């Protein structure tokens, strides 16, 4: 295991991207930072700029408006980075499957930019904070 991956596991900084979510998953993500779950224990920190991020937490189906922005944000994130699809919509478009504004699930858009992107899925509507922590742990140990 190289030192880059080792240190990435120790301090994954996350950037939160909302590509058209109903805010339910977003509230659960913010819930991770509260005293009850306190993900800073594991070095996870919410940052304000994609250039500082090691992981993108993407919530919601990708709408036609959000797709080019999601591609741009992925390009602006320094590699190595991990993409997390948080919630049923981001994983598989969920109940919005045949919506007129839906371009596709998050992984499809990311794969258009980078076919080798590392993508992790946390299903649920919304996923529990425990499920998100478990997803982060599994994704980082699979690196």
């Amino acid at each position: 295991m190289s030192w880059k991956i080792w240190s990435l596991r120790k301090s994954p900084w996350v950037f939160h991207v909302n590509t058209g979510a109903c805010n339910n998953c977003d509230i659960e993500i913010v819930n991770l930072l509260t005293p009850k779950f306190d993900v800073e224990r594991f070095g996870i920190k919410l940052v304000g700029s994609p250039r500082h991020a090691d992981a993108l937490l993407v919530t919601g189906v990708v709408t036609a408006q959000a797709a080019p922005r999601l591609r741009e944000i992925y390009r602006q994130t320094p590699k190595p980075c991990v993409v997390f699809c948080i919630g049923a919509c981001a994983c598989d478009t969920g109940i919005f499957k045949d919506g007129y504004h839906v371009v596709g699930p998050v992984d499809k858009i990311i794969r258009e930019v980078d076919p080798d992107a590392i993508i992790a899925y946390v299903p649920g509507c919304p996923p529990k904070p425990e499920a998100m922590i478990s997803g982060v742990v599994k994704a980082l140990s699979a690196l």
Partner: protein
Amino acid sequence: MTEALWNLFWILIFPGFLFTVAFGLVASWIVRKVSALVQWRVGPPLLQPLYDVVKLMGKEILIPQQAQRSVFITAPLVGMAGVLLLSTMLWRISIAQTAFIGDIIVAIYLMVLPSLALILGSSASASPHAAIGTAREMKMVMSYELPLVLAFIVVIIKTGGQLNLAVIAQHTPVFSISGLLAFLVALLCVQAKLGFVPFDIAEAETEIASGVLMEYSGALLAVWKLTQAMMLVVLPLFLVMVFLGGFGTAGVPLVWGIGKYVLIMVLLILIKNTNPRLRIDQAMKFFWVYCGIALAVAIILAIIGNGYDISWL
């Protein structure tokens, strides 16, 4: 030859780079841990700041297409060099008494260098968010530099016109009315210099996405993080030397010195955790009007106290 080697040793290893970085990373851990405890959380492990820096070193460096490449890359190094020089100078004055007349003015100049480098680097990045951050950082520098220099002038008056840090460090101006006022204002200025919460306007993560640091990534961001960690050592140390009677090197004075450093850190962290972020105009008004008035009173008291030999004024 040996003289040059010793200078290199001082700058790179003992009071300089390695020591300050190690001390600074521990100090930034203390800031995060105590903030977490104040908020009833567990907080990060001891080596977390080190993990962050190592990770950033291993990441890709992205440079915006329209950025001024040379300025964008050299600015963090300039900022770090300023703090490194200041740190070496202050510790050498504390340990080996290598003070010279006017070193307090050199120290004031070196303290501005990281902020100037930050302004240069972020304005070279060609990003609108960073441009807003740059404008705010410039206004902050203009707001807090004047009160900070005035606070040091109070100390210089109190000590009878001394410009030598080793001599100033033998006095404790904080045990007088004017000295206490100046100390409180200088503490708030240091809070602003460190970019801590009521004054983190230039880095506001929620509004302008980390502002000045927005376009930095990878190793360049790591250099900025290290610079901030080193400032966390140097600025409280400077306050200890100027206001609280210096940092001893052995035995009881050393314990006292650490105690004074911890006192300033505790004050900074508590201010950080109990205040919301100000707007830029509120911050400017605070520093120029309220701090300005407090310092005008302090200077008058200091001059009167000096003229009539009343040490508590």
